[in-house]
């Protein structure tokens, strides 16, 4: 049977593996957090995997992304080492930030991952800078900033949209609209009827896609990234999403409608949707996907085991890395 999808099978498998890795990573953190094993604030990305992976499938290491407080998905999709991430979240010396950053500050600049961020909207200016650097250094890299529906009302994001438009930067503004900012609905907090209107107000095109549909995201992202690479400037891309867990671990989620999470798990699960599409098209078999599931499960088990076994950073680390010199 021929492949009706815009990616070859290898890449479809890769996309699935990435999404599944994110999902398992988050599900596992949820369990281990409840057990009291994870320090600090943890914001889980589960439910939104198709957005991160659908976009990141188009990117190279030279392309830059800036992530949010809900950053694990972006990191994994951009290729950050899963074991180093897990160790970081456990605060271990083997973590990708040597234990100094934690969940909210995972970064790997060598892969173009400019950092999760504890400050809403902070990534938008940074990505304008990365896009400017691409322009000035004469390479075709793009910069993508992710932000939530809540953060879409931060001045930094809004200013950056104008900046990117007037400088015609290869920058993309991805609103991950999961309907909530903490417990507050997007309907309460965001005045415009549509993010496309907001894009227009800043002189750039805006597109809204179903963030749960990997292929819709992949296609829309491909188009806006291509435009950016070709010098046609920035775009706003709204991806409609659902958040399976609470705002952060420990959130009782009473602001959600009764049964909302269960409904979303049953009907709005981007992984199930992906599995259904690729198996129904006969491009990938259930057992191929199951095999990936098993590998991912093992990877996460190993990541947790290694994180637990890893040493904590020693006190001599307290004052290193403040300055280059």
């Amino acid at each position, binding site marked *: 049977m021929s492949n009706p999808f815009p990616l070859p099978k290898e890449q479809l498998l890769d996309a699935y593996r990435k999404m599944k890795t994110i999902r398992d990573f988050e599900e596992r953190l949820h369990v281990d957090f409840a057990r009291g094993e994870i*320090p*600090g*604030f943890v914001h889980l990305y589960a439910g939104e995997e198709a957005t991160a992976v659908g976009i990141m499938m188009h990117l190279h290491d030279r392309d830059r992304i800036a992530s949010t407080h809900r950053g694990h998905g972006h990191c994994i999709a951009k290729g950050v080492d899963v074991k180093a991430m897990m160790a970081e979240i456990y*605060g*271990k*010396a083997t*973590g990708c*930030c040597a*234990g*100094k*950053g*934690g969940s*909210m*500050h995972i970064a790997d600049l060598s892969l173009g991952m400019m950092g999760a*961020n*504890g*400050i*809403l*909207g902070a990534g938008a200016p940074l990505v304008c800078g990365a896009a400017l650097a691409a322009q000035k250094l004469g390479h075709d890299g793009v910069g993508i900033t992710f932000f939530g529906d*809540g*953060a879409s*009302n*931060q*001045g*930094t994001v809004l200013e950056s949209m104008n900046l990117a438009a007037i400088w015609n930067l290869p920058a993309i503004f991805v609103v991950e609209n999961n309907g*909530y*900012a*903490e*417990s*507050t*609905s*997007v*309907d*309460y*907090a*965001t005045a415009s009827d549509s993010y496309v209107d907001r894009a227009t107000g800043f002189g750039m095109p805006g597109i809204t896609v179903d963030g749960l549909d990997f292929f819709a995201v992949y296609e829309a992202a491909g188009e806006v990234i291509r435009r950016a690479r070709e010098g046609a400037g920035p775009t706003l891309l709204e991806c409609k999403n659902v958040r399976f867990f609470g705002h952060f671990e420990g959130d009782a*989620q*009473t*602001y*959600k*409608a*009764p049964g*909302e999470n269960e409904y979303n798990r049953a009907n709005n699960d981007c992984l199930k949707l992906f599995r259904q599409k690729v198996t129904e098209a006969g491009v990938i078999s259930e057992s191929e996907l199951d095999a990936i599931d098993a590998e991912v499960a093992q990877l996460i088990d190993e990541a947790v085991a290694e994180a637990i076994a890893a040493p*904590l*950073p*020693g*006190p001599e*680390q*307290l*004052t290193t890395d*403040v300055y280059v010199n």
Partner: protein
Amino acid sequence: MARIISMKDAVNEALDQEMTRDPTVIMMGEDIVGGAGAQGEDDAWGGVLGVSKGLYAKHPNQMIDTPLSESAYVGAAIGAATAGLRPVAELMFIDFIGVCLDQVFNQAAKFRYMFGGKAETPVVIRAMCGAGFRAAAQHSQMLTPLFTHIPGLKVVCPSNAYDCKGLLIQAIRDNDPVIFLEHKNLYASTADVPEEPYTIPFGEANIVREGRDATIVTYGQMVGRSVEAAELLKKDGVDVEVIDLRTLSPIDMDTVLESVEATGRLVCVDEANPRCSIAADIAATVAQDAFDALKAPIRMVTPPHAPVPFSPSLEDAYVPSAERIAAAVRKTLEN
């Protein structure tokens, strides 16, 4: 009769009582009610740690959830304060001041002076501060020196539930802009807190523990650790006075100077970073105004000049401990 409640409940009670007393007192912030526009429960959060839980039910017109636009809503609180309201704006973490500082330091703080005395800006900006929550570099700062440096602001950082209630009520009734910093690690700490409203005046330090041999000056979470240090030192027969500043601006230097005149030895303990800190501020003033009383070098105990690390092992080493404070006191006794 003792009524032991947590600092978190003390904050809630102060807000509740002031909103009842004065309908122009309003509170705004992100998810301070919770669930705005959503389909589930009303009053779903009461702030990120539930501090304002229940206030919406009692004061529905005085509790306002905001979008994630700190410049706009903190500025709106300031503007409203010049127009007949007495707003309490909650900035979830003081670390977020970077996105709205202008409204605080160039607007609220300077109106009265720039306008030749013609403005009053009775606004309170409440925020969580401090380390120990494994919340890393962008959610754990003190930043007390930043605000203390700025003329026109008042800066409060209580160390316990009793003070917290009285200082918060004072902050709300005060006619100047007040930065009110609640250490997140102290929310669970309890004290005997009277039910009726009361105020604690600004600029009056509290001598938490009297002593003859040395003076420790501090505030916030470090008060408890300093008292612990004093207990440790007691075992060695060292008798330490511990002063809780309570408000950093205005600051009660008289109490500090008097104490140093008596003890001759000073240790300044600060959870803020060392450079241009509150510790430095006090040490400098004492070195100027009570120099002759000093029998030994002043010592400062602070975290290092580094951001707050995430890992528990590092964060625990970062925040001054009772042992480090005690060691500093011992050092002043060497002279």
